[in-house]
């Protein structure tokens, strides 16, 4: 299956959906402005008192169903009876209440059971009795007692009983504004060309308001968070949504809490449908459908004035249940009237309203939930593009906040109900936190609602109603009857939400404090023990700023799960946060230790290694032991105690929990996410020292996974190569055939033997002339003077993983280094081509060759012999173990064992031998350390260092000693080789795999600056080259030389990245050299006299020193070139073919 295609399609669907959703909301927001403005202006001319007192005003019937409302029924009835309207009847329908509502009403209003004929125009449950008051003051009151049948049934009974042309359906617990009924009725009187079939008004949240005698006295914002969020939601829904749809003529819903209807049309449509939980929406849709089908001109009016105040759910449980029902009601209605969907026969409602409700009301929670699931799937399979996801999240969030604030502005400009400063600030603050709190509740409840409905799809329309409950109306006011018992999730009280905010803020602050403390500790350590020059004030401000940035970035990743867990388990959220801070602190501390040990920042390279490799590396570095484990445990315990202690004493206001995630998002998206290290200090070590190590590590990891998923066209290449089929074989090009070596060699005889010594950690910083730390390789230096020496030579990698593919194959890197691509791409190399030409090939390594998958790579090239740790017989001494771990056999033992092998070559055929040393690897422990310590001290003297310089070198005594050891091993090896008959026909190539990063570096390029020399008795003369070449250039030059001088058969096409060694003596170069510092990062490129490190450009001088350069033109050029390279490199996927089958089979015999 083509997952990329699926990903692309899924992303496109979400994007298109988001586009239309946002566009829809934008339109609604803007379109509502005109409608609201016009209404307000027009309304200023209306004297509602006139309507109330006029004998010409139409008579209306108010229908108020009641179920178990005993607590407030008398007050509510009194409130309804006090409505000032000339021609009014109030019908209270007791829907089979189980409480004493009827008794209370009977007593309060002196009711008697009247002989009342009920014209059952709409079929309903049995009416037990119709009651009237003996008191003429209450002559307009009718109380109906009926068998319980749900709200819809109760309303239908009221409709049957009502005597008047217009009916007003109202929730009995609603509090009405003074002129509510008048405002609701007026639209019926205004229009003559169209029949007004229904009117609805704005419902607002009464929680928090002052209410006296059933009247609203003062409007206030609810103190509780959930009602406050619903207040904002209602403002949005009514002031913007309903207003715009009303103006468009497509209103599909009038709140069940308060709406007026033309009774004749209601009856013709059959009244409320008691088979749905969304009876109010269903009725209006059915009425509209009826009018459209009858071709009758009609209108549904909307009053933007706040007319009715209702109590909002204060607990998550009731809110969830409410939203669950809204969802079911919506789906039921849309399903029932699906014929209208995109049906031009139904005009605006069919073409606009219905699709809007389907796509953006019904589908929105499902799409949102689907998006989340999709993201999680991407996360699991490593497809997630975090930048993209986070930027989309930010986009949606900011739009949501903006839309809410726009609604608030409309409210302020129109009705300005919340006049106190405190209320307004809280309302605006709610806009920022609502997406994290009530919105997820709504989405989840909608998902549950959909599932509940699907489970009961066979009983569509047969659901029973248990009656309706109080305090459950909303902007969509769909229903009040709990048709399906909803689940009972944990109730989150408002106080808990506030408390959660305080807990988060407090622990977040402690987390920052811990970071600062670690930085102080780190700086103090380096100033005290590592001879870093300077003082606290020089470094700490930078460290603190970097800590602050990392802290800010981390908050959103702590906040989101914290909030999600909080919904399920309040205490669990706190435990999570404490645990997360403890683990993050441990990570930071571990990375500080790593930096101290290795001198390099740990980045995403760790992701490129297998578990076994990491274990081996850690083991050899001596950190896997019980004392360390105990230390880790103690550290975590300490952090947990600090967090626990501090969070109970440091109390930030709850609002900080809102501000902090916003700051976090801003930090992430303000560009700091790819922040580059400061280059303020003289040495790279200092620059890296002040960085937040966790930030670097996680940023690096982020880019690793992001780039891993990045794809795109290979792009055009502007290099010197003539590519033959870039579409199928992106690296295959014609051989440049630049034979630069022949002039330096005596030619004739049989093809020469090739011995390549890949020397671990050998950098130019401490080897050969120009070593700024002083050369600790006297023998290798002497060789270089007898051979061809490239003083400005670059490795292709910052670690060993890159050396074999680059030296032997001039190969691209793939995602994590060429050797990590599995299965290995079909390709040719120096190994396979020399073997094809009759060479014997062998590899010698004192460690485990499976490390970095070297063995698999070499075997894929058909190597004849691999000698590694396990092959060493008794009598050879391994490198001194640290905590039981050792890399294997040291360099001397490696060469000794090689020399002892009699069957390495048959004497008939030329050979290629490759040696990879390990003595100069961390932990830098060599056999006979005393001797090399002495040599080290002697060398310090030889180099003429002053005491300070000596002291500086002594900090890395083990490192330098191991270099001297390696140099000595090479000396012994070469000197013994001189004794061999094949020496005269042998070419030695010596180079470092990368510079040892543990010794502080001066520049970025320093990490890759290694010596490279060709030494051979066959050389005509020694030469020194200053131009820059790299490991990739070795194979092309060697093969060209061998082809031209010894007629070796090499293909006319090849995939070499290198152009061949540059033998210019002056410092000049125009080549493009990509470098992979760690297994996951290709962030270094050399081109011309420039070095691009990430986004930073450096100018390289003849001594390979570099300075930061601000040449945007050059930077852009290199970045463009780098981009092309990266794209082509990404094509190197598992199983890819670098060369055609025919070519591969010819030179390898088809070996896999």
């Amino acid at each position, binding site marked *: 299956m083509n997952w990329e295609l699926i990903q692309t399609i899924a992303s496109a669907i979400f994007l298109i959906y988001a586009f239309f959703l946002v566009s829809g909301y934008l339109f609604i927001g803007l379109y509502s402005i005109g409608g609201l403005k016009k209404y307000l202006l027009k309304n*200023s001319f209306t004297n509602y008192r006139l309507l109330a007192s006029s004998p010409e005003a139409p008579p209306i019937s108010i229908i108020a169903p009641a179920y178990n409302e005993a607590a407030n029924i008398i007050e509510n009835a009194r409130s309804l009876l006090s409505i000032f309207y000339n021609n009014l009847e109030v019908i209270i329908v007791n829907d089979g209440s189980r409480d004493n509502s009827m008794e209370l009403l009977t007593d309060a209003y002196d009711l008697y059971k009247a002989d009342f004929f009920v014209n059952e125009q709409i079929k309903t449950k049995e009416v037990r009795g119709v009651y009237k008051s003996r008191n003429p003051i209450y002559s307009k009151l009718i109380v109906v007692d009926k068998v319980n049948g749900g709200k819809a049934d109760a309303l239908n009974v009221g409709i049957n009983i009502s005597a008047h042309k217009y009916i007003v359906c109202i929730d009995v617990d609603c509090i009405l504004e003074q002129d509510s009924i008048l405002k609701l009725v007026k639209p019926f009187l205004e229009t003559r060309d169209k029949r007004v079939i229904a009117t609805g008004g704005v419902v607002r949240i009464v929680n928090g308001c002052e209410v006296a005698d059933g009247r609203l006295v003062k409007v206030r914002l609810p103190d509780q968070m959930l009602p406050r969020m619903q207040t904002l939601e209602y403002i949005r829904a009514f002031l913007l949504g309903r207003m715009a749809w009303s103006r468009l003529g497509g209103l599909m819903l009038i709140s069940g809490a308060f709406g007026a209807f033309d009774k004749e049309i209601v009856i013709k449509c059959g009244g409320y449908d008691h088979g749905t939980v969304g009876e109010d929406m269903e009725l209006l849709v059915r009425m509209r459908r009826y009018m459209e089908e009858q071709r009758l001109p009609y209108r549904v009016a909307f009053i933007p004035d706040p007319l009715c105040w209702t109590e909002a759910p204060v607990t998550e449980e009731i809110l969830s249940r409410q939203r669950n029902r809204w969802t079911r009601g919506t789906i039921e209605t849309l399903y029932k009237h699906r014929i209208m969907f995109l049906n031009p026969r139904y005009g605006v409602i069919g073409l606009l309203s219905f699709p809007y409700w389907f796509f953006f009301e019904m589908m929105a929670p499902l799409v949102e939930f689907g998006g989340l699931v999709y993201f999680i799937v991407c996360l699991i399979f490593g497809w997630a593009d975090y*930048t993209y996801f986070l930027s989309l999240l*930010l*986009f949606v969030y*900011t739009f949501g906040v903006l839309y809410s604030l726009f609604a608030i*502005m409309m409210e*302020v400009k129109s009705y300005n109900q919340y006049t106190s400063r405190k209320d307004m600030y809280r309302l605006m603050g709610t806009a920022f936190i609502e997406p994290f709190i009530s919105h997820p509740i709504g989405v989840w409840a909608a998902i549950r609602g959909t599932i509940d409905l699907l489970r009961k799809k066979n009983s569509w329309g047969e659901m029973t109603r248990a009656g309706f409950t109080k305090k459950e109306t909303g902007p969509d006011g769909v229903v009040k009857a709990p048709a399906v018992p909803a689940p009972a999730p944990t109730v989150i009280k408002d106080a808990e939400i506030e408390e959660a905010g305080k807990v988060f803020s407090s622990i977040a602050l402690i987390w920052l404090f811990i970071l600062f403390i670690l930085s102080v500790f780190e700086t103090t350590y380096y100033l005290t023990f590592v001879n870093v020059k300077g003082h606290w004030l020089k470094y700490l401000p930078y460290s603190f700023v970097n800590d602050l940035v990392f802290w800010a970035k981390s908050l959103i990743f702590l906040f989101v799960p914290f909030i999600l867990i909080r919904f399920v388990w309040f205490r669990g959220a706190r435990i999570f946060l404490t645990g997360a801070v403890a683990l993050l602190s441990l990570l930071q501390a571990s990375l500080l230790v790593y930096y101290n040990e290795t001198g390099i920042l740990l980045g995403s390279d760790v992701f490129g290694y297998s578990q076994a490799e990491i274990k081996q590396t850690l083991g050899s570095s001596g950190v896997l032991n019980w004392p360390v484990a105990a230390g880790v445990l103690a550290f975590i315990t300490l952090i947990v105690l600090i967090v626990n202690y501090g969070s109970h004493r440091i109390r930030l206001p709850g609002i900080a929990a809102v501000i902090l995630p916003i700051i976090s998002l801003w930090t992430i998206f303000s560009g700091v996410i*790819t922040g580059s290290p400061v280059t303020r200090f003289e040495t790279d070590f200092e620059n890296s020292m002040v960085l937040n190590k966790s930030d670097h590590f996680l940023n690096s990891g982020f880019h690793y996974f992001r780039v891993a998923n990045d794809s795109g066209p290979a792009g055009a290449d502007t290099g010197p190569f003539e590519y033959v089929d870039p579409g199928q074989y992106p690296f295959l090009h014609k051989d440049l055939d630049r034979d630069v070596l022949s002039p330096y060699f005596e030619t004739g005889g049989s093809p020469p033997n090739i011995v390549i010594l890949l020397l671990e950690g050998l950098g130019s910083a401490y080897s050969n002339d120009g070593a700024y730390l002083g050369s600790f390789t006297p023998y290798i230096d002497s060789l270089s003077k007898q051979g061809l020496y490239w003083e400005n030579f670059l490795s292709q990698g910052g670690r060993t993983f890159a050396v074999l593919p680059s030296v032997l194959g001039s190969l691209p890197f793939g995602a994590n280094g060429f050797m990590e691509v599995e299965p290995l791409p079909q390709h040719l190399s120096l190994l396979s081509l020399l073997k094809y030409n009759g060479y014997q090939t062998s590899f010698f390594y004192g460690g485990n060759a499976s490390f970095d998958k070297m063995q698999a790579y070499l075997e894929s090239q058909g190597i004849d012999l691999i000698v590694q740790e396990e092959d060493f017989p008794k009598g050879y001494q391994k490198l001194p173990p640290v905590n039981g771990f050792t890399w294997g056999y040291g360099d001397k033992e490696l060469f000794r064992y090689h020399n002892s092998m009699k069957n390495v070559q048959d004497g008939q055929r030329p050979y290629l031998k490759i040696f990879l040393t390990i003595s100069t690897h961390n932990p830098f422990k060599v056999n006979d350390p005393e001797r090399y310590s002495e040599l080290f001290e002697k060398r310090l003297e030889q180099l003429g260092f002053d005491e300070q310089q000596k002291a500086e070198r002594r900090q890395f005594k083990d490192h330098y000693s191991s270099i001297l050891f390696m140099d000595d091993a090479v000396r012994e090896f070469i000197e013994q080789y001189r004794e061999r008959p094949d020496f005269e026909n042998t070419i030695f190539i010596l180079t470092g795999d990368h510079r040892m990063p543990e010794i502080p570096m001066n520049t970025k390029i320093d990490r890759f600056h290694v010596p490279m020399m060709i030494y051979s008795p066959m050389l005509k003369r020694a030469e020194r080259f200053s131009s820059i070449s790299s490991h990739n250039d070795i194979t092309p030059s060697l093969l060209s030389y061998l082809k031209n001088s010894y007629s070796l058969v090499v293909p006319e096409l090849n995939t070499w990245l290198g152009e061949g060694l540059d033998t210019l003596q002056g410092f000049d170069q125009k080549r493009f050299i990509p470098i992979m510092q760690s297994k996951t990062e290709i962030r270094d490129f050399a081109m011309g006299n420039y070095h691009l490190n990430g986004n930073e450009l450096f100018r390289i001088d003849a001594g390979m020193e570099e300075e930061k350069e601000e040449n945007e033109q050059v930077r852009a050029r290199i*970045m463009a070139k780098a981009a092309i390279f990266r794209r082509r490199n990404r094509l190197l996927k598992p199983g890819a073919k670098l060369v055609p089958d025919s070519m591969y089979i010819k030179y390898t015999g088809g070996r896999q």
Partner: protein
Amino acid sequence: MELISDFSSEATWPVIMASIFSVLIIGLVVYIVIYQHFIRLRNARLARWDSIAESLIMEAIFFEKKSTKDPMLDALDILEHEEVRVPKRVDNLMKDRAFRRRIMDKIVAAKRNVSGTASENLSSLFRKLGLDLDILNMLSTSVWYKQATALELIGFMKLASHQHLMGQYVDDQSGLIRMEAQNAILRFSGFEGLHFLTRTRYSLSEWQQIKLLDELSHLPHEDFKGINDWLVSENDTVVILALKLTRIYHRFELFQEVLKCLDHTNPEVRFHAISVLKALPNPDAVPVLVQLFPRETVSNQIEILKVLQDIASDTEIGFLSELLYDLEFDIRKEATRALFKTGPAGKEVLSQYEGADAYPLNRIIAHVREEDR
């Protein structure tokens, strides 16, 4: 460069949009805070102004002209020397448009609650403050709500000098302007003002009819003319208003014209014509209604029965009895009521009626009987 291109192709647009939204968010927050602050300041200022305006208004309400003892001067009603004195402070404030609007609203609000001399004094103050000029300015704009406001105030403040302007607006295409002009013209001309009905092209909404009838209810009853013409208007809403006028002012002389309306093509007009007959009780209407009944809509049939409840006699018992079988229960109910209203004979018929003990008639009879108690 790759980073940039990747970002621009994928992640940049949401970030750019989010940045724009963020700026707008900040802008909105600042705007709301400032706006509310401004509202508070304005309210504080309005409170100060209200106190100044109210004191001036109170002075105007209780202002009494001194008698000149010269009937000639009183007759000439020379007020220049006897108007409410406008304090200097108010004069200064009148330069502020907001204050002018505020004091205008206050005078209008005060005038709604007073009448007689006090009301006239307020109109006088209105003019003295030059607010009538503001109204004229509003009327001269092309903004519908300003024009409507101006027309409303001209009528309400009885700015007679501007009365002549009303005529051009009574048939304006804007419903609100038309409505305010029509109301204003009634204030100036009383029932005479209704003559705009003769030529109005537009429908009169029920709301406008209620407003017009309310305006008229404050005027002394007159034997105004024109209803007979309006009863035959081509504009159905004019006919309906005329029928309402006939009903409200009990214009018995128009009985025949009303009967003619029973033949109107619009059932709504016929409905109102039927209901008028309740207010003009006349036995001659009974046979006409009985004859009309079979051809009418259900709602009109119910209305006919309601009228018959007041004017039917024993003669109609047979007709009404037949309706007890009607498919519409509401018609059965109204017919039962009518039978009850006809007197003992009707009640006797009901009690003897076959099916009187069966549903629904038993329930209907019980219902009506209880109403009759």
